[in-house]
């Protein structure tokens, strides 16, 4: 097709083709667009940061020779059995329901192979996932679907979920085409209905109640398990302070690039703040409380490479979580499915209809034939490979900065490429000593 611009045609920046298509779709259907994935708009991100490698004034470590540690302990503030992970790259919460049982098993296998954790989601714990996950974090969500004390005791950590980056303030959503009999039974819902998860917890409101809720969870599990609190990135500074005050062992902050299986497009793109803007707020809150490194910080939302891992850790995170990237490692959006994506009105690299249940890669579906396409063993191997690459890439950068452990990376190692990123990350614009907003 000829590029219209060579004909002298001008596309509106305000009403671009995607916007026009959105208006046309709304006018035809009368319903808003529901999709998966996270924010697709361009945002200030880790790409806008660079590391200052060692040179005259800093001493680098030898790659392949000198050790660069990657291990992390999560939740040693109150829990009898904190999580001890070999890599700080963890797998974020994704539900059975949103994902097939095979995909959940594959994530567990991959995470276990490299010694990291995976996380349940808004649908309870499956035996496949528990069985294949060495370290399993059990999400405690407003819906409490499938929630039971037996599974709670089987978990290695408990994550109280207040929100997620793709939809802070919104509950989960699972459309009828993905409510199979098994999913329906685990959630105590009629099969085939469009399921709306609650956005607020049913038995506590506010930070003072949360402290009592966390106490109850500790009492039920005999103070054995770390308790995480997960928030979508919004008023992160205050949320982190309140989570710590409520007794969290670990705080999870999910930026707006973090994925979802099904949410309104308008919600994904317009509610919440970027991961880069949230992370320094979280660290500041922890530092002011004297709890940085005492209460661990996990950051998610747009982590793709070891550089992203290293940058998040340099800004003060103890660990990161990946969701969308893990699905891509499993086979999501692979060009081998190009013809099937086209048949669904999408394309490899663009597919985000995770709500639809017809995922050709067999990941975001409950269809038995489609989900059988994903071999959990092979998928697990790909996830493990990818996790290893992320870890090794982060180590490469850390060594270049002279750090013998990923946790030794620090903001001083970073500069920003843009004024926006400098202001958000609170590191100087490259080549200057200017941190916009510092000292105000």
């Amino acid at each position, binding site marked *: 097709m000829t590029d219209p611009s060579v004909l002298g045609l001008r596309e509106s920046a305000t009403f671009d083709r995607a916007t026009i298509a959105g208006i046309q779709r709304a006018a035809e259907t009368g319903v808003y667009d529901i999709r998966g994935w996270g924010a697709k708009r361009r945002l200030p991100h880790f790409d806008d940061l660079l590391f200052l490698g060692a040179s005259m004034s800093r001493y680098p470590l030898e790659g392949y020779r000198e050790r660069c540690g990657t291990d992390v302990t999560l939740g040693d503030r109150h829990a009898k059995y904190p999580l001890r992970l070999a890599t700080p790259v963890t797998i974020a919460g994704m539900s059975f329901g949103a994902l097939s049982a095979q995909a959940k098993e594959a994530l567990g296998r991959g995470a276990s192979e490299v010694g990291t954790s995976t996380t349940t989601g808004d649908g309870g714990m499956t035996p496949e996932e528990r069985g294949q996950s060495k370290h399993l974090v059990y999400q405690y969500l407003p819906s*409490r679907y499938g*929630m039971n004390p*037996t599974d709670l005791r089987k978990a290695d950590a408990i994550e109280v979920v207040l929100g997620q980056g793709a939809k802070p303030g919104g509950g989960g959503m699972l459309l009828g085409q993905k409510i199979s009999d098994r999913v329906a039974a685990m959630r*105590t819902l009629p099969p085939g209905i469009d399921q709306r998860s609650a956005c607020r917890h*049913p*038995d*506590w409101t506010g930070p003072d109640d949360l402290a*009592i809720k966390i106490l109850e969870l500790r*009492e*039920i599990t005999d103070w054995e398990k770390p308790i995480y609190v997960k928030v979508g990135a919004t008023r992160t500074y205050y949320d982190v302070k309140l989570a710590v005050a409520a007794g969290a062992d670990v705080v999870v902050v999910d930026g707006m690039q973090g994925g979802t299986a099904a949410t309104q497009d308008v919600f994904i793109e317009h509610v919440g703040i970027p991961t880069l803007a949230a992370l320094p707020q979280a660290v500041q809150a922890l530092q002011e409380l004297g709890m940085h490194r005492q209460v661990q910080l996990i950051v998610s939302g747009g982590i793709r490479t070891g550089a992203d891992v290293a940058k998040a850790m340099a800004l003060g995170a103890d660990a990161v979580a990946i969701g969308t990237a893990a699905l891509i490692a499993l086979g999501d959006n692979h060009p081998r499915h190009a013809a099937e994506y086209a048949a669904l009105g999408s394309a490899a690299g663009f597919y985000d209809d995770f709500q639809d249940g017809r995922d050709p890669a067999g990941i975001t579906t409950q269809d038995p034939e489609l989900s059988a396409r994903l071999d959990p063993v092979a998928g697990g191997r790909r996830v493990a490979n990818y996790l290893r690459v992320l870890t090794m890439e982060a180590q490469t950068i850390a060594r270049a900065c002279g750090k013998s452990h990923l946790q030794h990376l620090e903001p001083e190692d970073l500069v920003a490429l843009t004024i926006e990123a400098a202001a958000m990350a609170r590191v100087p614009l490259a080549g200057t000593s200017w941190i916009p907003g510092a000292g105000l």
Partner: protein
Amino acid sequence: MEPLTTDATPPNHAGPPPLERLVSIDVSVATVRALNNELHHPSAAAYEVLQPQGAHAIAAGIDQALTVDIRGHAGYYCAGMNDGGQIVVHGNVGTGVAENMMSGSVRIRGDASQSAGATGHGGLLVIEGSASMRCGISMKGIDIVVGGDIGPMSAFMAQAGRLVVCGDAGDDLGDSVYEARIYVRGKVGALGADCIEKPMRDEHLAELAALLTAARLDHDPRAFRRYGSGRTLYHFAAHNSAAY
């Protein structure tokens, strides 16, 4: 009566705890943590909790058929996630009593605060007095019988189980209810979105009679009205936007 010390080591059991022993635990002396640790690794089948003083998470996480009598008022999440225990509170309780109960029974001789029986999957919760707002919110199979009234937004998004109210119900009863069944003897302030009155058939009179008997409440089932889901919100539809 045997006092429990805070450093008591839980015994390792090969079989069920002995029935003949009643262990009394004074929460003004022992901690709640020590109490719950004992209830999770019981050395007896019957317990009484003295001077609970409104403490939170009393008797939370019981996972076997113990009898526990709590002699006084309890705070939040009393008997939380109970799975098999027969628990009686001789007083009032705070928010979230018997939240997420799986099985067993919890009886409150007084009143209950918000979110009583929230998300419960099974078992029977009896509140002899009244319950505050959000009673039975997100219930998933539990049976709740309230001798008095319940507050607003009760049975919100209730998925399964039965909620019986012998007094009045507050506003927005059963908003967005799924398949839970609600029986109310008195007045209903207002029904929530997609909650409708439904005919009382013989099977409903029979199950209500059984629930009242189990709760040891003497009311005529025919004096109750039944409410449940209109099932009009089970699928997204643009014309329902005012109800969502």
